[in-house]
């Protein structure tokens, strides 16, 4: 299991494309510092930077790239066969891959969010954002890992979820918020450290229960899907 995790981590960071993960967090920290330097009131810049950029873009996009990358790139290459033919329980493979994805995306999104929260209000807000982002990374990674097993175009489908479901519908149709990970993260951060920057729109119970359902459900579905996984050639 640790070997699988090691291979996955090397697959993610062994190439230049790991550098793609850098600009987004740097931009978040940079903008927060810029606003702080110009003495803009946190109530003005907090929402667009922390929610608009941090929770709506950095966290889901980083989780998407990493979450679909851990398993999806091996399926694309066909090297997943080497892991599948080893006498390893499918559960261990999924858990190792999910673990790497969560750790990487949580680190890349929680650290800049902590700094942004620190610059906006206090270390407590920063810590709350970091904890919520970690939980969010767990839920997003589980979802995107499942997507990479269900379809050949996981990134596009994930983008539909982020852009259309959470981005467009989440603003206008209140019912979709119950199934939006972004809203759970906002609620969680707001409840840990109440702040005027975040506006939670679903209740804490809903976000905890639904978040857990997302993680466990997607995890179990991935394990089940990998049990009867059949390699398909390049299609379409």
């Amino acid at each position, binding site marked *: 299991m640790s070997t699988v995790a090691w291979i996955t981590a090397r697959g993610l960071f062994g190439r230049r*494309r790991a550098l*793609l993960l850098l*600009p*987004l967090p740097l*931009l978040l920290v940079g*903008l927060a510092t*810029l*606003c702080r330097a*110009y*003495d*803009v009131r946190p109530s*003005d*810049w907090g929402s*667009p*930077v922390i929610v*608009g*950029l941090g929770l709506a*873009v*950095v966290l889901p*996009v980083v989780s*998407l*790239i990493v979450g*679909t*990358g851990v398993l*999806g*790139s091996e399926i*694309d290459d066909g090297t997943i066969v080497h892991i599948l033919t080893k006498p390893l329980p499918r559960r261990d493979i999924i858990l190792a891959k999910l673990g790497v994805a969560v750790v990487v995306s949580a680190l890349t999104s929680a650290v800049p969010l902590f700094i942004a929260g620190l610059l906006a209000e206090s270390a407590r807000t920063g810590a709350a954002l970091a904890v919520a982002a970690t939980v969010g990374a767990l839920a997003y990674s589980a979802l995107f890992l499942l997507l990479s097993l269900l379809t*050949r*175009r*996981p*990134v*596009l489908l994930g*983008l*539909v979820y982020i*852009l259309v479901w959470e*981005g*467009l519908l989440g603003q206008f149709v209140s019912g979709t918020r119950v199934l939006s990970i972004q809203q759970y993260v906002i609620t969680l951060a707001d409840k840990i450290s109440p702040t005027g920057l975040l506006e939670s729109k679903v209740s804490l119970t809903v976000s905890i229960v639904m978040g857990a359902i997302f993680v466990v459900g997607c995890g179990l579905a991935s394990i089940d899907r990998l049990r009867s996984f059949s390699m398909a050639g390049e*299609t*379409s």
Partner: protein
Amino acid sequence: MSEASVIHDIGYQRYTGPRLGRGAVFGAMYVHGLRAAFGLGRSAKAKIFPWLVVGIVTLVAVILAAVRSQTGIVPLTYLGFADAMSWLIIFFAAIVAPELVSRDMRAGVLPLYFSRPLRAADYVGAKVAAMVTAIWALLAVPQFIMFLGAAFTTKNGMSDVWDELGDLLPGWGYSLLWALLFTGIGLLIASLTGKRAFAAGGIVAVFLMTTPVVGVLSILPSSDAQQLAGLASPMTLISGVGQWLIPTANSGMNVGNFGPVYAIEAVTLIAACLLLLLARYRRVAAL
């Protein structure tokens, strides 16, 4: 070896027909690229995403035309339509650009292409032309539907139709600007990676991460910074150009006296993307 060795004629023949040159290769790649953009000639799976976007955009246009013909109110102008569809254009660019260039890298066919009488400029030109046409058609066809809706419910006969046409043509030009900029950025990012998934993610990330920058810059305590804020994101950049060229556009952008700056940046950005694309294809790896 009792007999002396002989060379048998097994019927190989030289090709003696006409040889088509660069122009024909360019045309073939353009048509192929345009078909690939919409998934034509591919499996049903490849058609889902492009036609999903086309469907939504057309539906919106039909609804807008219906609202206008029934109530007489104009909910969105031709320029405002392109602005309102910007998220879908990003998504479309993220579908089409990897389809056009990343597949060729992944399949390792670039050395085959360039062993023909085809230059890097032809390859890039055909791909760019195909994608510009695809994105432009994505916007122009719905705009034409809106025009038809307005033209057939006109009250004053031909003069109103001419007025409406005068609104449509700048709208088409504006859509072309959208198509050029999104093609340049999209193809440039997609040409860096052979994996369609990473290319799509990268394109969306670039467009998404620039939007909040505009939001932050526009609240800085300086009116110059606020008026220049739109330069930071491709979407607001084009809105700014449209606002400067057509002051009645009402895109909600306040560009002040910096309209020419927006236009210069848009042109520079498009040119820079195309030049970088050319530089990218000066050498191709044999994989």
